[in-house]
């Protein structure tokens, strides 16, 4: 249990630093930055008790906002997907709450995980860009940025998940 907590702390700090030092400067095609820090929401242990997860995801988003001067945009989006994580998992992967203690995202069928990750990422990006632009007249920009950023993020997250499985 203790090593688990330590692992999660390291994951939290590692993803935060990776995001602000490297990934926020990628600017692929001029404006696309992948949000790899979402990996935290996906691989954080699945428990029925969600209080700590919600708090951690809120803080992770808020810390990234501090670096990006973006108010509470990342905090709001990350918190939202963290809250919807369990219902979505039940819906996409058909898991019930009894399975959670032994549940491991890296051991699930590839296509189902891909669907799950894609939906989470898309919602996250959509909230981020909607809050950033905050106007209906920018709907086109919001959707195109959401779409491109999600694709880029999903590829990176799936790649990281494959790396995580290989190690075991």
């Amino acid at each position: 249990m203790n090593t688990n907590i330590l692992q999660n702390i390291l994951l939290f700090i590692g993803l935060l630093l990776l995001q602000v030092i490297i990934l926020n400067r990628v600017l692929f095609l001029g404006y696309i930055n992948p949000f790899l820090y979402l990996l935290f929401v996906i691989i954080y242990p699945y428990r029925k008790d969600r209080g700590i997860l919600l708090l951690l995801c809120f803080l992770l988003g808020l810390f990234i906002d501090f670096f990006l001067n973006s108010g509470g945009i990342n905090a709001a989006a990350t918190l939202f997907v963290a809250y919807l994580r369990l219902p979505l998992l039940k819906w996409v992967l058909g898991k019930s709450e009894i399975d959670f203690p032994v549940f491991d995202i890296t051991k699930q069928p590839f296509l189902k995980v891909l669907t799950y990750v894609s939906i989470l990422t898309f919602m996250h990006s959509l909230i981020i860009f909607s809050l950033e632009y905050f106007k209906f007249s920018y709907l086109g920009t919001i959707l195109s940025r959401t779409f491109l950023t999600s694709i880029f993020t999903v590829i990176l997250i799936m790649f990281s998940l494959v790396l995580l499985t290989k190690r075991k």
Partner: protein
Amino acid sequence: MQQLVNFITKYKYFLFFLLLEIIALSLTIQNHSYHKSKFVNSANFVSGGIYNRINKFREFTKLRTYNDQLLEENTRLKNIIAQQRIDTTDQVFGVTDTTKFNQRYLFTRAKIIDNQYHKRYNYLTIDKGSKNGILFDQAVVNSKGIIGITQSVSKNFATVQSILNENSRINVSLSNSLHFGSLEWDGKDYNVLQLVDLPIQANIKIGDSIITGGRSIIFPAGIPVGTIEDFGVENNSYSFINVRLFNDMSAIGPVNVIVSLFKEEINTLEEARNEY
């Protein structure tokens, strides 16, 4: 009472989620509003310190560009001095009256340690803070033009609201006439800004230079901004005027922060006027 406790225990995660989400959204709205102090900013010692460290590495790759920029600026300034020597020789009996001399602006130097230009609300972080005399609402420029206005200030760092920000409106004028307008950004190309509210009486053509107007208390008049790239006329007014900046906003390093020494005096005057 029992029902209330039941309700809270049943929906405790949802209520917790709602509480945090409201905090996040109010921080976002605060961040989008113009001229409010921002709680979430990168001028704290953690993010400022990390950005400063990254910048120390990145700076090396851009030294050549910065050197060229400095050389260019030096040449321009030397030319201005050379011209002024000619002017003063005309006034042989001219005596400089030091009591009438009033310095309006003070320039300090700073370095951009984090630069955003791809979002709708862009901010930069500089490596100077209140320790170096940086305050809220000071102009940030470099040798090629305007960059932004200081926003949140900590002891060692400060954030700058970039001219590439939805909230940014800078008073500018044409260099060959006194007509003025405001400079805004539509969020598309980070090197092309839009000049709005320019009266149709101002004759413009493609290639005209734009400089800062004297109406802003923050920016001194006459700082170069850019040139007119294209414009459209509709219903006897300008429908759009695109201005290409002299600066490349994606590659800015050393900057000057301008302290306006008369700002308070002008502010008190304007406040007194507003009271009537």
